[in-house]
Each structure stands twice: as C-alpha cells, then as structure tokens.
C-alpha cells in the first residue's frame, strides 16, 4: 500500500519540532501579519532573513520546502505580473494597455517575497508538527470560543476522526476501483466528462461504506464511554517550556525589528 503522508509531517529532532504546538500556531499568525506589515526593503529583508532562520532551524531538508513552493509558483508569478503591470504613477515603459511603473515594480517584488515567506512559514509549521498535535493545539487555543457557543471539542474530534480515516478511505477507494475495473469499468480513457462520469460507480459504494463505518464508529465510541467534551481528561498535557519562552522572545525581537526599520526608513509601498 502506498505510504500516505498526512499533513506532510516530517519527523526530525529540532527545536521547532519540540516547541509547544500552541506557541507555533500563534507565532505563525503573528509572522504572517508581520510580513504584510513590512513597508520598505530593509524591514522586508529583515523579515525574510528571520523566516529563513526558522526554515533552517527546522532541520527539514530544503528540498521539501522547494516542493511546497513549486505548487504555488504559478500563483506567485501571476500576482507579481498583475502588480507589475497595474502600478500607479509615472510609467517608465508603456505598450498597448501594459504600463510599467516604479510603484508596480516595487509592488511585484514585495508580493512575490511575501507569498514565498508565507508558504515557507506555514510549511515549517506543518513539517514540524504532527496532525494530531495540530488538532490538539487548535482545540486548546479555541477553548475561549466555547463562550460563544462554538462546539470547539466537537470540531476538534471531527478533525481527529477525519485524519484517522483518510488512509482507510483511500485504501477503500483503491479496492473499489479495482473491483469496478474487474467488472469492465473504464476509468482511464475518454474526455474529462466521461472520466468524471466513470467515477460515479466508485463514489457511490465509497459513500455507502463511509456511512456504515460512521455508524459503527459511533457505536464503538459510545461503548468506550464517549459523551462529548464534558468531564474529559487528556493523556497528553501541553506544558510551556523554557524553549517556548525563548521562541516567543525571538518572535517579539523580529516584530520590534520590523517596526523600527519601518519607522527609520522611507515607505516604498
């Protein structure tokens, strides 16, 4: 059976891997906000360097990061070009409806670097945090939302179960496809519409079985005394460590740096 890497977790022994997942999620949000608050090249460069530092600290091969960048390279190119051609101000080059301005060039560079940083950071989070830790941390972080009557525990439980059943259902899809092929189903040829139609005999049994599984799982969960989040304890406790505090300090230093550089140098965008 194929090896399914869920949420692209890459096990390694690095500081980033050992950080409290809650700290990682909150820091990620802070960094993303920060990257979009860089207004000149100095602060942008500073932010980019700190992002690269984080990437190197993760001890995940750079090849993995390049792979995740490859997926969005087209988006980066298109948004950069749009920014390049639709800048405001004095044109330095004009042809038909296309006009290139200094503001456009600056915008394009900023957008390009910002998106790349964004992808690198979120990849760093998913590479260094297992899906279980992520859902766990999300559940704990969203706890205050309970006051707004948002079913936080139920959402986290749904995510956990979804993660658990992805490989199972993938395996089942393979089996059903093989079974339908054995009965003469043709799934590889024909145009797009034909191929989508050929998927129906795969999807119907898959959904039927998913519902059956859901029912059985519900019974099994009830047998194990599941009754929602009330009165439930957890085996894994999350504790803030010294290294978590240092990572928060690091984040604060980067934020301070970007703010200062924004103030001392002229805004470019």
């Amino acid at each position, binding site marked *: 059976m194929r090896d399914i890497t869920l949420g692209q977790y890459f096990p390694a022994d690095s500081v980033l891997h050992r950080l409290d997942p809650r700290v990682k999620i909150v820091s990620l949000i802070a960094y993303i906000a920060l990257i979009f608050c860089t207004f000149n090249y100095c602060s942008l460069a500073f932010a980019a360097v700190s992002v690269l530092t984080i990437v190197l600290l993760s001890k995940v091969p750079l090849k993995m990061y390049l792979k995740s960048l490859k997926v969005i390279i087209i988006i980066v190119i298109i948004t950069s070009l749009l920014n390049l051609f639709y800048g405001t101000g004095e044109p330095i080059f004009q042809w038909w409806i296309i006009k290139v301005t200094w503001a456009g060039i600056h915008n394009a560079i900023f957008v390009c670097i910002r998106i790349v940083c964004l992808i690198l950071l979120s990849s760093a989070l998913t590479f260094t945090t297992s899906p279980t830790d992520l859902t766990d941390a999300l559940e704990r972080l969203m706890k205050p939302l309970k006051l707004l009557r948002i079913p936080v525990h139920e959402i986290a439980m749904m995510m956990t179960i979804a993660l658990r059943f992805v490989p199972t259902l993938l395996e089942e899809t393979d089996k059903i496809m093989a079974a339908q092929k054995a009965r003469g189903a043709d799934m590889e040829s024909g145009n797009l519409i034909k191929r989508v139609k050929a998927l129906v005999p795969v999807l119907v049994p898959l959904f039927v079985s998913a519902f059956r599984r859901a029912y059985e799982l519900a019974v*099994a969960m009830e047998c194990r*005394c599941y009754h929602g989040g009330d009165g439930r304890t957890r*085996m894994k406790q999350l504790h803030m460590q010294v290294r978590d505090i240092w990572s928060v300090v690091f984040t604060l230093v980067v934020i301070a740096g970007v703010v200062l550089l924004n103030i001392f140098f002229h805004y470019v965008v």
Partner: protein
Amino acid sequence: MDFISVQNVTFQYDEQGESGKNKLVLDDVSFGVKKGEFVAVLGHNGSGKSTIAKHLNAMLIPLSGKVYIDGMDTSDESLTFDIRRRVGLVLQNPDNQLVASVVEEDVAFGPENIGIPSDEIRERVDEALKAVDMYDHRLKAPYKLSGGQKQRVAIAGIIAMKPDCIVLDEPTAMLDPQGREEVLSTVLKLNKENGITIVLITHYMEEAVLAEKVYVMDSGKMLTSGTPREVFSQVELMKKHRLDVPQATELCHKLRACGVEIKELPLTEEECTAMLREVMTP
C-alpha cells in the same frame, strides 16, 4: 450472584420485517456469567447473538426482562456509564473502532472519556498495550497495522478502562488465520492472568471449544448450554439447527454411527488422534 445476569430478555428492532410484522430478535433469553468465567455464545447469522452482546453493556435495553451487571440494572440510565466502564465491548471490524491516528492515543480514548487524571492514563495505556503485546507499536498509525494487530489495539483500548468483563462480538470474523490466533491467545491470556471475565460471541466452533461454558443460540432463543463437551456431544441437535460441531467431533460421531466403539466424543484434533489410536490398538 452472577456477575452478568440476563433474565427473560425479549427484544425487537423498530424497523418492520418483510412480513410487515416485527420478528422477535431475542425471545425469552436467560443466562448468567460468573466473575472470571470464559463463556462463548454460539450461533449463526441472525441468531440474535450480536444483539445479546449489545445488551450486556447497555447499548440496547431489553423490551421486557432484565439485564443485571454486578447487580446494576442496564435500563437505569444513571448507571449506563458505570456499566460501560465495567463491561467493555469489542466489535467485529477493527478498522471502525479506532478513533485516533496514533495507537497510544487511541488506547487513551476510553480512560480520557471517563475522566482519569493524565498521569494515570499514561500508566494504564502502557500497561494495556503491554498486556496485548502491542507496546512496541505504540507510536504507529493504525492503518499500518495488520488486522490482528488492530483488533489487539481495540482490545487494549477496552482494557485501559480497567473493565471486569470484556464482551467480544465476533472479533475474529474479519481476520486471517494468524490474526485470529493472535486475538484468541490474547483473550485467553487476559482471562487466565488478569482474571477478566470474557464473553466471546462467535460462529466458529473451534473458538467456542476454548470456553468453559458454551451457550448456543438459534433464531433468538437459547437452544442449549453447557461445557463445550456437553454441547458438542449433541451432534444431532446442532445439525438440526444448521450449526456445525468441530471436525474432530463430527468424525468420531460418524465413526460411532458405523459401529466403532467410542465412549466420549473428542473436541480437538489432539484428543481425536489419541482416541483413535486407543480404538485401533487391539
């Protein structure tokens, strides 16, 4: 007083049968299980044996009659969680019982639900995984395990709640012979070493032979009961109700019909060979 006491239980599901009239799934079923006993419930599909399993941990409440677990009435809703914590139920399909994507977290699911403190959950999980011999696999994802291993993890998930009794509803039906062997030896070990009461629901005669007591069900009724030897010596009765007896028993039963002198019908192949050797030596 028996640990499990099923008294004149009748049950039917809500949905209408083909004839438009509801058929009783359980019809006046009574039996008892003592603490520490290993009991097998035997029957073919549709005999009501799975329905019985769900009555033992208050997943289903009898229509009439009573089920008592250590004196607790299953129809009393305030006792439901107490009962489920003391009587664990392992189901047929191991894939559909595991909740988490890491083995040890799945085993922790039960104790987490009943509010055990974190440190103690850790201990219980390690203990339970060692008891089913899956400790080395504790950090693996369930989909990377074999069927027998998954079913053992499911059993560990129940043991971690420290139940007095485990009910297994055809736990080996979806496993290969090796997985079946793994699960059965685990169950036997839990019964012998940890003193956990076992109710094994099955349609394999070879599994029923392992039990101290066998209950045979057919179309919702309790057909017969007794030690495996008592039950399987009634070859004619079993055949009449479309149930088999172990091959060794059947062979000797046929030989006896041919006039070979056999005093007592054997249950296992070993017994059978020993007995035949005795008969054939003049």
